[in-house]
């Protein structure tokens, strides 16, 4: 596995460099800098409503990131999470369309379906990797697009709205299949509970269970782990299944609590954004929470930037990208410096 052991000083330095770079970009486009950062705060946590909306972004992003950390810890470069989110959302929608039952029963069934859908898609990447020798990067990427093809087919085909075959989305779900929300807000406590519980479970797996330790060992050195008697293939496969199931839950919250129907862009790009989060965390599960919260703030802030400053909607993504790129490069620089120093001290001995 790629352990990034980042000094706190470098983190702070990277944050500063990123903010300076972003500010330069703002200057070039004649945007007031102070106003921009103020709107970022006000727009994301300035009121209860705004905080609620930020948390609604936080949930799927956190689920996608925890899913990724399951597989990254096992040394797998999983870029198939987008597809697994889609698979979870499709499974959710199937239940929401076909099953007519009281809300608690229906939502439980949707939850189980989403986990199974995501795990199926993740497991497929795993089977391709373990049995077929297909590198998980390309297996995952391929299945991302297959999932997108599937969703487009469903939306304009069998699940299309009556009389209209457009890529706009399906009919909204029956109202019993919507996640209940707080009075007058978009915030759904159930989503938050799912996000927090999953995050705690994953942190627990890696810090307290022997499964987590063995999975990490498999990621660090598969051959050594195998010789020590860890059934590495089975561990890798479980990482794909669990990761897929968690990603499926992100699909559930996207379909049942965000869009209330199936749309082609159901994944919201969280599968890719999650990779940035995980890279920024240096693969430490405990750091997921603050980073996903910061990223959700930026995503919400960019809505305000567009409304108040006329900034293009992509600016939030530019901010996130610059932030991660500086951290990664400074990490690399830190490692490089350390090697140089070791090299010199070896020579002086």
């Amino acid at each position, binding site marked *: 596995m790629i352990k990034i052991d980042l000094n706190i000083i470098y983190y702070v330095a990277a944050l500063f460099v990123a903010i300076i770079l972003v500010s330069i970009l703002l200057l070039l486009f004649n945007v007031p800098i102070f106003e921009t950062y103020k709107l970022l705060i006000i727009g994301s946590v300035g009121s209860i409503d705004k905080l609620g909306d930020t948390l609604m972004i936080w949930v799927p992003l956190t689920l996608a990131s925890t899913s990724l950390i399951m597989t990254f810890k096992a040394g797998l470069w999983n870029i198939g999470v987008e597809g697994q989110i889609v698979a979870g959302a499709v499974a959710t929608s199937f239940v929401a369309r076909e099953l007519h039952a009281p809300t608690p029963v229906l939502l439980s069934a949707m939850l189980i379906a989403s986990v199974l859908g995501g795990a199926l898609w993740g497991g497929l990447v795993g089977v391709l990797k373990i049995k077929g020798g*297909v590198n998980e*990067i*390309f297996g995952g990427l391929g*299945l991302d697009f297959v999932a997108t093809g599937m969703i487009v087919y469903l939306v304009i*085909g069998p699940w299309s709205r009556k009389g209209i075959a457009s890529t706009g989305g399906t009919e909204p779900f029956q109202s019993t299949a919507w996640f209940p929300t707080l009075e007058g807000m978009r915030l759904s406590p159930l989503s938050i509970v799912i996000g927090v519980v999953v995050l705690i479970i994953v942190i627990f797996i890696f810090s307290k269970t022997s499964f987590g330790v063995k999975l990490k060992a498999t990621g660090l050195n598969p051959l050594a782990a195998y010789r020590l008697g860890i059934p590495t293939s089975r561990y890798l496969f479980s990482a794909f299944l669990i990761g897929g199931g968690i990603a499926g839950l992100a699909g559930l919250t996207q379909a049942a609590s965000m869009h209330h129907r199936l749309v082609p862009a159901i994944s919201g790009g969280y599968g890719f954004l999650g*990779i*940035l989060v995980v890279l920024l965390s240096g693969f430490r599960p405990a750091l997921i929470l603050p980073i996903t919260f910061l990223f959700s703030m930026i995503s919400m802030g960019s809505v305000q930037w567009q409304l108040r400053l006329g900034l293009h909607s992509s600016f939030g*993504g530019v901010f996130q990208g*610059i932030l991660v790129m500086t951290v*990664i490069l400074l990490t690399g620089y830190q490692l490089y410096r350390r090697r140089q120093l070791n090299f010199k001290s070896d020579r002086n001995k």
Partner: protein
Amino acid sequence: MSPEILAIIVSYATPLVFAVIGETITEKAGVVNLSLDGSMLLSAMTGFVIGYMTGSLYLAVIAAASIGSIMALTIAFSSIVFRLNQIAVGIVLTLLGTKLAAFLGQDFVRKPGPYVQNLPIPVLEDIPYIGTIIFNQNIMVYSSYLLIIFTFWFIFYTKAGLNLQAIGERPEASFSRGLQVNKLRYLYTGIGGALVGIGGASFSLDVKLGWSDGHVVNFGWISLAIVIFGGWHPIRAAFGCYFFAFLQVFALKLQPILPRLSQVLPIMPFPLMIITLLLINYKTVQNFADKYQFIGNLIKGRAPSAIGTSFWRQ
């Protein structure tokens, strides 16, 4: 199928040919440039904007090639000097490139701008059927033909090409044979990236004129898939590009008759990529390929052994 439609297919495949050949060269040297989708978007935007502001297509293409090169060299540098993971840097650059392209190109969306003029080749264009398909195109398309042939010849029939393969297969052995592995990796990653950039430019200046958000419609990811489908072989890869362009154009023609199928056809390269990877690793297929050389060469293909790894002197 009429020659006019085939001509459209050939022209549609051009950005892919540039990007796929570029990435094949980069990967042959042992470096994975996963940033293709971001690189193509950023270079398509740069190419269009520079062309729009200066009116010069040469400057536009050069600017786009430079952007593609800078993105690729960032990956090479992070891998060689910092020993960072190429996939990690590639993914971050993809997302950054995508967003940066949308942000920096915001004032140029859907503006009319310069484009590459058609340039039929005299005499050759009069060859019945083939003339219309191959020789009634523009300079970008002609360059892409030459690029395919040149790259094939270069990789397999020149000493420099053998060295290129060597540094991607056995960097240690190449180093002890006196090759400057990392310098060569910079060189070929830079060239490969420049070709990806030209692919992006040929998008905004030729195939789909102008600039809009998400302009290159996943062609970067598709190129990565076709590199594998092509088994890291320039001619097979080019065949993959034309085959994909055929599917795309076919899908457009199919739209009125079978709207559902036409929406799903564009994802075809991805299942094909997975099947190729399965076949490559499947024992029976390998044995079959070794037995019957001629057919074998069509289905065989293997990633360079040292792909995605950093090399340093012990």
